């Protein structure tokens, strides 16, 4: 994965839980441009652990002077967001991958409907800039619990396309109303918690939307879980995966070569063949089909875990 060493030039709290970080090239060089929805992977050396988390870029896709991300502190998470919140200050240097987009707009669409829940607003911030620049018809629906928690409100332009649905102001998002009466050629993009994505899929199905017009990105960091062990078929070694570590991170720590890109179970790059499995793979990815998951013959080490007697993978 191609990456650059970048300097943190700003770290600012947007809400009590969300911080914005800006990265620039240490010698002021221009960074590669990207498209709305792209993410970068930030490397976080945390003690003797090297963590890598993916974050959507929230800065202007046409502005190569820096990359910006918004990080929500997840106290129950594995520590990546705590590291960013607690330890990262302007002047620090961090390794950041080049942008990659797994959640791009379908520019053949006649209209774009963006639906965000909570911190799921992040990929849409750059997409809104792109859509406004291209003068394409769109609407953004942003659901948040309260105005103080709605970090996106500080980052979105004040345009009539943006609709905030703040539940503690009694203004909840009505998906049926949003999905009804959209012109032919509309594409829908949802980012947020799993529940929101399921709700959009269900309302869409009820209203006759084809699946291909509904896109989603679950913003997912690898879920923590119970520690487990994995045997590597090629070397015969057994490695331990800690409770707050992903299998991918454990493989990296053991210096096993493995390709990756999204680290969120979406891109398919880390797909690994399972040689034998006595127990249950906890699939957390969005890459394998349901049938492939239940067959237990493949695993996505960036997000998935294992419970049971023994797991041997082809690495």
């Amino acid at each position, binding site marked *: 994965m191609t990456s650059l060493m970048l300097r943190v030039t700003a770290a600012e709290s947007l809400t009590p839980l969300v911080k914005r970080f800006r990265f620039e090239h240490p010698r002021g060089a221009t960074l590669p441009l990207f498209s709305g929805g792209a993410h970068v992977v930030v490397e976080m050396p945390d003690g003797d652990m090297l963590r890598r988390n993916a974050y959507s870029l929230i800065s202007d896709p046409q502005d190569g002077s820096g990359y910006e991300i918004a990080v929500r502190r997840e106290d129950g998470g594995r520590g990546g967001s705590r590291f960013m919140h607690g330890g990262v200050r302007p002047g620090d240097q961090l390794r950041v991958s080049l942008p990659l987009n797994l959640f791009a707009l379908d520019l053949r*669409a*006649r209209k774009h409907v963006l639906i965000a829940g909570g911190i799921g607003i992040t990929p849409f911030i750059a997409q809104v800039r792109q859509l406004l620049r291209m003068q394409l018809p769109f609407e953004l629906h942003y659901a948040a619990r309260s105005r103080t928690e709605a970090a996106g409100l500080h980052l979105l332009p004040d345009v009539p396309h943006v609709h905030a649905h703040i539940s503690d102001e009694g203004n909840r998002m009505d998906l049926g109303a949003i*999905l*009804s*009466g*959209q*012109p*032919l*050629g*509309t594409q829908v993009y949802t980012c947020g918690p799993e529940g929101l994505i399921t709700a959009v899929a269900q309302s869409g199905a009820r*209203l*006759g*939307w*084809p*699946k*291909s*017009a509904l896109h989603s990105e679950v913003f997912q960091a690898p879920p923590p879980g119970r520690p487990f062990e994995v045997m590597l078929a090629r070397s015969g070694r057994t490695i331990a995966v800690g409770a707050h570590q992903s299998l991918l991170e454990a493989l990296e720590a053991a210096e096993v070569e493995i390709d990756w890109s999204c680290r969120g179970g979406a891109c398919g790059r880390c797909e690994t063949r399972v040689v034998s499995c006595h127990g249950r793979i906890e699939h957390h990815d969005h890459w394998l089909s349901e049938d492939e998951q239940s067959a237990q013959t493949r695993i996505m080490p960036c997000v998935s875990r294992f419970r049971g007697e023994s797991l041997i993978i082809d690495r």
Partner: protein
Amino acid sequence: MRATEFSPSIPSRPVYGGLRPHGALPSLMLAEGAGGEALAELAKADPPVMRHAQLFYVPSGAPAGPDLAARLRGLGPASYVEGPSWAALRPRFVRALADAHMGTRLYLAGSEGLIGQAMAEALAAGLPLEAIDAEHRGDIARRMQCVHCKGITENVTTDPFICAHCGLNLFVRDHYSRRIGAFQGVCVDAETPGIVPEPQEIKP
């Protein structure tokens, strides 16, 4: 008359999965000739479908028997429009597409030329491919585009045939353009001018 079964061909040759009930969603229906029977069968399988349907019908070429047009109207579609040809109905069909919303289904039944052209309009209007059901009924004449002069020859029933525009002898390919709703015709005697195989009736 039943839905046409086509012989096996290249994977890109269009096949038509038939009209299937999708519940009481708003829909556009377009049929020509014997295709009207496919709509009548759909209405029988799923009666509420008609209440939300705008139906367009070209009776020409319908088999004799009970008046299909009257039967279709009697099924109680939300609206019914009849025309002497696809060309005559097209502006109203395009208008209906422009007013349609996501969630609308399209049912097409009739010749390949009609299905192909209506589908091309629908896709251009932004209707997703998965929202379209089509069933082939009636004659198997093809709508052909000459790959040399780009002219369209309608109702081609023999292979090879003569391009109605440039006069070349064209071989009937199974290669199909979804954008223009036509099969491709390629010069059959380019390497051996004048040596043209005996024309055969095309088969389904």
